[in-house]
């Protein structure tokens, strides 16, 4: 198993302030998602537990934790790497399938919220299209259907 993540110096500089979880929007709706706990488990060598679990797929990659971490730890980047590791060892969960389905169907991972629509309107942008044709074109070109295997 690729354990470059565990040796990451910045990851080890964490002094357990919990700011990442305090500011996490996902944690507010799903208390089981705790970025500080994920970092701790990596340091403790419990990588398998993390890769098999659903937690790593819940991050919306909003970067709030990375931006506010006093030790400058790239928490979001680490979560990304974990996903890559999980995917490489074929340990994907139902959550990933759901995300993939959403991506193929709508062209995006998360549906736009009312606030997003309002912001776009204010900025003079056209409403979000539900048509994934352009996305599908890109996926086809990239042979992204391999994701489904």
């Amino acid at each position, binding site marked *: 198993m690729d354990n470059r993540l565990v040796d990451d110096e910045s990851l080890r*500089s964490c*002094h*357990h*302030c*919990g*700011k*990442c*979880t*305090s*500011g*996490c929007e996902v*944690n*507010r709706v799903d*208390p089981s998602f*705790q970025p*500080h706990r994920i970092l701790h488990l990596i340091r403790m060598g419990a990588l398998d537990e993390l890769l098999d679990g659903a937690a790593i797929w819940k991050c919306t990659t909003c970067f*709030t*934790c990375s931006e*506010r971490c*006093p*030790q*400058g730890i790239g928490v979001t980047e680490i979560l990304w790497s974990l996903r890559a590791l999980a995917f490489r060892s074929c340990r994907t969960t139902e959550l990933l399938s759901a995300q993939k389905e959403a991506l193929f169907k709508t062209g995006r991972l998360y549906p736009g919220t009312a606030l997003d629509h309002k912001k776009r309107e204010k900025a003079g942008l056209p409403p979000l299209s539900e048509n994934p044709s352009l996305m599908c074109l890109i996926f086809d070109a990239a042979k992204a259907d391999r994701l489904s295997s």
Partner: protein
Amino acid sequence: MSALRIGVYFCACEGEIEKVIALDALARETFERPEVITHQAFSLCSQHGIDTIRKDVKKFGLDRVLIAACSPSLKTTEFADLGINKYLVERVNLREQCSRCHPDNSENATKKARALLEMSLEKIRHLKALETVLIPAVKAALVVGGGVAGINAALDLAGAGAEVFLIEEKPFLGGKVSDLHRYYPRLCPPSCGLELMFSQLENNPLIHVLTSSKVEGVSGSPGNFSVSVRTFSPDRADSPETAQLRSIIVGAVIVATGWELFDPTPLTGYGYGRLEQVITSLDFEKCAKEQTQFLGERKRTAFIQCVGSRDERHLPYCSDVCCLVSIKQALLLKLANPDNEVVIFHNDIRAPGEYEDLYRQARTCGVQFVRGIPSELRQDTPGTIGVSVFDLMAGERTEFVADLVVLATGMKASQGTTELKNTFGLVTNKYDFIESHLQCHPQDTQREGIFTAGCCRAPMDVSRSIESAGAATAKALRYLQGEIAVNPDYPVVDTLKCDRCKRCVEECPFKAYSFDDEGFPKVDILKCRACGVCMGGCPLGAISLGELSIEQLSGMLDVLDTSYLGEDEPIILGFLCKNDAYRAADDAGSKGISYPPNLVSIMVPCSGAVNAMIISEAISKGVDGVLLAGCADNQCHYLQGSALARARLADVSNKLKEMYLEPERVRFASISRDDPEKFAATVKAYADELKQLGKNPLRIQ
């Protein structure tokens, strides 16, 4: 030169040295030199042994004394006064670096001892009688900064009889402390202490307080600094040109330029400056001081710790005081009104020593401590702040509605510190605080005669600031005694050789060099710490220390028998720094850690003092390998000495390559004072490597 009369004294060390080294043979050979008398003692450091040397010095009119006994680091008091100038006495390390480290190889140990003895007999010819230099000094000191540290330094200095000039940029004294409501841990008002100090300042005729004043420039040396001070009118109406400028002569300077509060605005999540209910800990002090109802008014207060501190993007260090400041403020809120709800959101709580008591008081009187730092603050309803935090102890999110949020903001180096750093040419650490060698000399700066007190050195609380003011005073007093005694081991520049390249001026870690009228480098012996970094760096070998000259080293190389262990054994010449590597080598002997006898050592003040010319000369004279050993990384007593040595050695190594010689013939090693194992292992590995490499082609057959 007429023949010198040299007395060589061999010590059997009560049999210990004699057991391994053939002292009789060595003494006999040495005695064959016409200018030498020899003596063998059972124990040279005994009263009898020392009396013998003293009598001989008188009787034979000895010009030099060579003591072949234990390490020169030892018995320095015993051999300090032999009736001859102490700079004319030389030591040969027969015990720690011969008999003790090669106990099972009497033959080779004696050969090595002979090689060391021959080098010392040559070195001794080049020694010069030196006397301590006394330089007149002014009995006055300058203290920059009128905060609690500066005031205490001024009072301590005047208490010891020195005249003091206390300079403060603001129109009034007292610094940050005058803004505080209460001190910890006794929770007493600072005004009480300040008033007492002010009256003491006023009533002491030795102290001159100059407010609304700034230091503009400095010249001269420790003992006689000339400082120009500009005094503005309190309203600052006058222009810099019209403000009064005066020159003050002082012997020493204490810098006490204090700290500034970290501005938490860049941490946008906390909304400081935007949300009215979010204040800093210093704002809290002002409110408590100025508004009588502030503490007792019933409210919910949240404290957030480590704001700016321990943050790689802002202040990467711990600001030292914030935990206790928040604990103190929380306690004051609780004491003023037990119905006050107070929560401290914290990282690790740092309350060392008796401060734990204050922490305990806060806990027992109902202050809540929550482990977890909020990421942002939200104003959901006007007038209150919602604090949402993941409580790491409970393992769940907790919400707190606060009427007031206090950010425990960190301390950073003040503007005044940065300005003074430039004026005085001081050196700061990576956090912008003035620092020299933190653990050994916390109050020193890298400039002789200039010391630090209080927060210009590091974040610290009031009690430690006052303590550091006392420490700085004690250090400064050395320069305020009317005269300063200087050891004569400072460097001397040979202006006949010097081509004014300025390298010494630039590389001196203590900025002791300036230029004389003709553009030659001139060392200020009061600023110099005799590390020899200039001697090591001079491309022309024009600089020599009082105790160790280029001529001595060159002479020692001339007489070194590079075949002292026979034709097939490689010879390593070790330049070992006095503070670390040489002592580690001694310890290897004392602890019975043996290493090959292929190394002969020369003690140098710092690895940075060894000139590349000398290293090249050693190789050209047939030495198989040169080991330059300095202290462990980052521990150099002379700051960049060992780093410079390493860089210079890389140049020599490249030069060897150009000359078609093996670059491995020079080697740098970092050896900590307490690592004799590493020293022994380094010598062994290097000797093995050189054996593989083969003989230095330049070795004389």
